[in-house]
């Protein structure tokens, strides 16, 4: 009876979960989202709806989500320093201290989701290397403030503690796990 936006449906979320696994396994690879929110909704919902539930928490310091989005996500809104996931605008750097995990549980750290203008094109050129990348991978981005990458570097200095990044534009995602070395060209 109720028409549910496909991003909230199980089969879409399974497909996007697979996409996220591939993005993390092959850093810098731009992968096209299968389904986008209808009616011009926040594109990040395609990823958030897959990752979030009542067991995890989200911080939205840039207020990208509407109240109705929170109700659909059924997740916990917390401060940035406590959140499992943090959603921000890529072009607007904000300094905060995310969860970095502990040596016993490095996975208890934050995943930063940055909404950028475009992946695959742009003046910001990143040379990526590390696990999942055969030699080097070039990733161009539009709408990503370089300070995010510097902050990522600071957070990941005590590897395995650190943060992982997911970049989203209007149709694609790419990931920069903490194991990836990023050099700005």
């Amino acid at each position, binding site marked *: 009876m109720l028409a549910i936006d496909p991003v*909230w449906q199980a089969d879409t979320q399974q497909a996007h979960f697979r996409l996220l696994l591939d993005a993390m396994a092959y850093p810098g690879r731009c992968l096209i989202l299968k389904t986008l929110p209808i009616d011009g909704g926040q594109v990040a919902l395609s990823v958030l709806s897959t990752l979030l539930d009542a067991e995890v928490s989200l911080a939205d310091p840039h207020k990208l989500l509407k109240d109705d989005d929170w109700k659909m996500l059924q997740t916990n809104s917390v401060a940035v320093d406590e959140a499992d996931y943090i959603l921000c605008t890529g072009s607007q750097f904000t300094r905060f201290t995310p969860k970095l995990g502990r040596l016993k549980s490095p996975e208890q750290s934050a995943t930063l989701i940055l909404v950028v203008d475009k992946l695959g094109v742009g003046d910001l050129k990143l040379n990526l290397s590390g696990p999942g990348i055969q030699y080097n991978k070039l990733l161009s981005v539009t709408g990503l403030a370089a300070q995010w990458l510097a902050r990522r570097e600071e957070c990941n200095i005590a590897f395995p503690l650190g943060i992982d990044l997911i970049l989203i534009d209007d149709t694609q995602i790419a990931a920069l796990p903490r194991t990836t070395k990023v050099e700005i060209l």
Partner: protein
Amino acid sequence: MIERTNWVSALKTLPFNELLDTTTELSSDWTLRPKSIPQSGLGMLKIKESAFNEQFYLGEFCLSSAWLEVTTPDGQVAEGAAQVMDDRVELAEALALCDAILSAQLPGWEKISSMIERGLIIRESTNNERKQMLTRTQVDFSLLDDANDKGNAHVSN
């Protein structure tokens, strides 16, 4: 007016097809938007034991929930929600729609109201039946006392 807390339990006594047909007919030109994802799952029944007052899980029960917003063509907006011990999400959606219709008195609310009245009568009848069944299972321990007294009297004699 019947209390809102009784609406869902009253409507649940009615046949599912009747609920679905009525709500589909009433909402044919309305816009229905979910406020949260309608879902179906299991609730865990927690109970405290009386020795150490510790909680444990007695078992599971089916639970479906729905929360939606209705907008009619003339601009009336209403919200309705339902949680029901059933594994059918469609039932929760239909009940949530009934909740919205009656709470905001949207067109067709009288139909829902009369369905609730019918449902309450059925629910009352079911509850009475259950009470009678429960009463028949109760043990009259005073009869045992009488039996013991007679036995002791025999021995002492």
